[in-house]
């Protein structure tokens, strides 16, 4: 089998469970797989950050600002390896890498959320979408067998990663598209949660449009 990340050939271990169950073979080799670190153990119960406190200081600050986002759930920790893989996925546009995340994304999602929620992927600006050819948040959401609502539109074109912390908190990034979200339970989907500014802003907009129980789900927590 060819590893989806390093393209090396590797031999999956044969076992009866593969023959007898519907368990899917991993698409990447054990060496690449081992370099992803799943978020496990002591975490902030609000934002999934690895920390010994029950609720981290950032989340306490969000609470003071009366954020309507109930919880953020993330799958992986951000490390150099993740940075490299995301760089290839997002900026070089190697869409097929999404397959490496399918299993973990589905497992973590179903552990935290019920199956009656709707997904709202964080949008890209039209120019950035044309440049990349796909929206990474939508790609992640498409791994889940749940309905998607395109309720948001991006109005600000600058990359979050090019901004300072302060810049991320000022200025509006989104507006509503008018899709109906009233009385729906929403999970916002994005690739990475860093300061949380993006998902908290999106949550506020969706809340004002009538959505309830707003949570977020990101691939990475940095």
């Amino acid at each position, binding site marked *: 089998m*060819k590893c989806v990340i390093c*393209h090396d050939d590797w031999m999956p271990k044969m076992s009866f469970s593969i023959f007898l169950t519907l368990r899917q073979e991993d698409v990447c080799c054990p060496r690449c797989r081992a370099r992803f670190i799943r978020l496990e153990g002591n975490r902030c119960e609000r934002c999934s950050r690895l920390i010994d406190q029950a609720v981290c200081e950032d989340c306490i600050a969000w609470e003071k600002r009366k954020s309507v986002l109930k919880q953020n759930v993330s799958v992986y920790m951000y490390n*150099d390896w993740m940075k490299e893989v995301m760089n*290839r996925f997002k900026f*070089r*546009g*190697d*869409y*097929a890498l999404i397959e490496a995340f399918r299993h973990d994304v589905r497992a973590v999602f179903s552990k935290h959320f019920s199956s009656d929620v709707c997904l709202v992927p964080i949008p890209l600006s039209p120019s950035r*979408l*044309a*440049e*990349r*050819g*796909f*929206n990474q948040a939508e*790609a992640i959401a498409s791994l889940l067998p749940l309905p998607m609502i395109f309720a948001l539109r991006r109005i600000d074109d600058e990359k979050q990663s090019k901004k300072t912390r302060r810049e991320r908190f000022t200025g509006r990034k989104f507006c509503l598209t008018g899709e109906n979200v009233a009385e729906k339970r929403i999970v916002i989907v994005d690739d990475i949660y860093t300061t949380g500014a993006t998902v908290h802003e999106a949550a506020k907009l969706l809340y004002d449009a009538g959505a309830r129980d707003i949570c977020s789900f990101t691939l990475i927590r940095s």
Partner: protein
Amino acid sequence: MISANRRSGRLVHFFFSGVIRLYMAGKQLLKSGLSFPYDEKYVQVVESIVKTKKGYRCVRCDNEDQQLFASFPCARCGRICTYCRKCVTMGRCSECNPLVIWTGPIPSTSFSSPLKWSGKLSPAQQLASDEVCHAIDRNDSLLVWAVCGAGKTEVLFAGIDLALSHGKRVCIAAPRTDVVLELAPRLASVFPSVDMAALYGGSQDRGKLASLTVATTHQLLRYYRAFDVMIVDEVDAFPYSVDPMLSYAVERARKPTSSLIYLTATPNEQWQHEVKSGKRKAVMIPARYHRHPLPVPTFEWCGNWQKKWRHHRLPLCVIQWLHARLSQKKQAFLFVPHIEFLQQVVPYLQQFHPLIEGVHAEDPKRKEKVLAFRRGHIPILVTTTILERGVTVPNIDVAVFGAEQPIFTESALVQIAGRVGRSAQYPTGDIRFFHFGKTKAMVKAKRHIVRMNDEARKRGLLDE
């Protein structure tokens, strides 16, 4: 007023098209990467992904492995779009993203004798250098087969000088970034007046078309019929030796009439055969510039070391070798077959000497460790095959542990042996292959070295 405006408009246009021409000349770029309008007259737009009987083929990198194609819902074309995963790091070639290939003229600049070098070549180097000049002059291809430490780079100087003074564009392609980073400053110092580009992943010179280019073979995927002289360094080195994409890139980046010069210490079997039968033009430098023979490796059987290692013990002969180096205070490389073993064995070896270190391809501290070894701070550096070439440290010994493993091919072993006795002050050294059963590759490597020494003796290139 109007005419002035129009004139300035024309001027802007002229200036702009000049810039574009400079940017596009000799290149093949993805349409999505071009943010400006281009002159249709001088370019050809071709599909980057074509359908074949077998499935798909990537026009830029010649990939036909169907496992390395993938499809995705593309926002640009609104369809399920197929792209090539093999060369995706150079920008995504997809069905809706064609290649824009420059077909117009390529500007050329000539220099009058740009070489500023006062060194002298050895007779064997001189012979090779003359052959290189000859090949460049006649747009021929040539293989320069030179032993490790023969001084291959100097052999190129005269040829590059000749090409540049005829207004030819020269490219030196090397398989890895390390080599480019080492080669570029060396060439810049001997060709101070020439515009140069050093191309590798993340380089500042990206997109430049210079008279003298040093590039990793990957970067050549951006060029199309751009170079009059193509020099491929270390053809036998990974990844060039295993990846047909890179030889395709070399073929596409050079002009149809151009000279092609390969440099290597260890041509593969097929090439060696072609040289012998006269099918491939080659020039050999069988001796080092310091006129001492190449040190010949000795084989030492060390038993089933893998089984021993399961009980966390090493063969006695290896331990003895280690003690001998440490007591003589002689630095040494210990080559091991793979990273997993390296990571286990280094902590074990550190009990003999706390400063023993290990380094492998993915080691973030790779550069620092090699530098520390060069400065003599590390007595023994345990490594995988990454250091098999390029790293030159005077007065060292080398051992290969588990030399029977398939990763140690003939060329890898010859290169490893070539680390020893590089400097004129210390032209000898010990090379030991610790093995559990001799392999063909080991025998061939030894024979290769012995044969080179014989050839050098015959031609009177050694002082003994």
